[in-house]
């Protein structure tokens, strides 16, 4: 595996993190204004598309998608997703101080977020991409049959 991230690529990961968390929070704020959506009234989801907060959230998530695709073109999926997990903390901060959700003050949730961030720290500090060796059509079946190592 290789770990060759330039400062510009770390900025891409930062963009993935911020746009996802801010976009999710904007969507939540907008959907609270729209009201709860039930299975029998899924048409309300189309009404939600006219809410400014939902529109802003969608624009943020489009920015997320562009930076996410760019990151996936030079790093593993199992590197990109956890490397951007600090966004969970951003979501919890926004939930507490902007949306004023009562559950956001729970110590359990803060402890959970701390564990998630610690966990993803292991990944973020590791190699970013798996090197896939070209497979030899003659040698590979022999290696598998004989149980030989690479």
């Amino acid at each position, binding site marked *: 595996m290789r770990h060759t991230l330039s400062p510009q690529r770390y900025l891409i990961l930062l963009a993935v993190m911020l746009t996802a968390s801010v976009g*999710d929070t904007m969507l939540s704020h907008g959907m609270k204004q729209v009201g709860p*959506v039930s299975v029998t009234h899924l048409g309300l989801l189309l009404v939600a598309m006219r809410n400014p907060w939902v529109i802003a959230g969608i624009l943020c998530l489009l920015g997320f998608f562009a930076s996410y695709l760019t990151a996936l073109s030079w790093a593993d*999926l*199992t590197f990109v997703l956890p490397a951007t997990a600090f966004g*969970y903390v951003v979501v919890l901060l926004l939930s507490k101080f902007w949306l004023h959700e009562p*559950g956001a003050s729970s110590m359990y949730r803060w402890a*959970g*977020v701390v564990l998630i961030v610690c966990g*993803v720290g292991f990944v973020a500090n*590791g190699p970013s991409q798996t090197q896939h060796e070209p497979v030899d059509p003659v040698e590979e079946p022999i290696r598998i049959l004989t149980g030989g190592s690479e």
Partner: protein
Amino acid sequence: MMVAGGGETSVLETWVTIVTVAATAVAGDVLTAGAMRRIGDLDVIRAKAGMGGAIKAVVSSPMFLGGVLMMAVSFFALLFTVSNVEVSLAAPASASLTFMGNAFAAKIFLKENVDHRRWLAAVFVCAGVFLLSR
């Protein structure tokens, strides 16, 4: 379980919606990541063919379009979820489950080297999700 709109949502309903978001997101992520691996480094493509060339390379991939379709399903599932469940639970929980599902799917389908460091991260995330649900 408190809900955004002021009503009540059962624990089962809450987690069914969260798991649906995660499962469709994993399918979307794996398809998209597989497509981006086949396409190659976007920075290099953009340098050679410009932004238009990079966009064309991405949107002409059937695997990418399949991934986008699954992400769209996941997005509407997320809209449904955040209208019924607090975002401070729904967003991290679905994202964490997505991360764990991706670790397995990336190893199986994308043949990524999910080493001990990445599995250890999955354990931490599991514990974090458990605490988030309290």
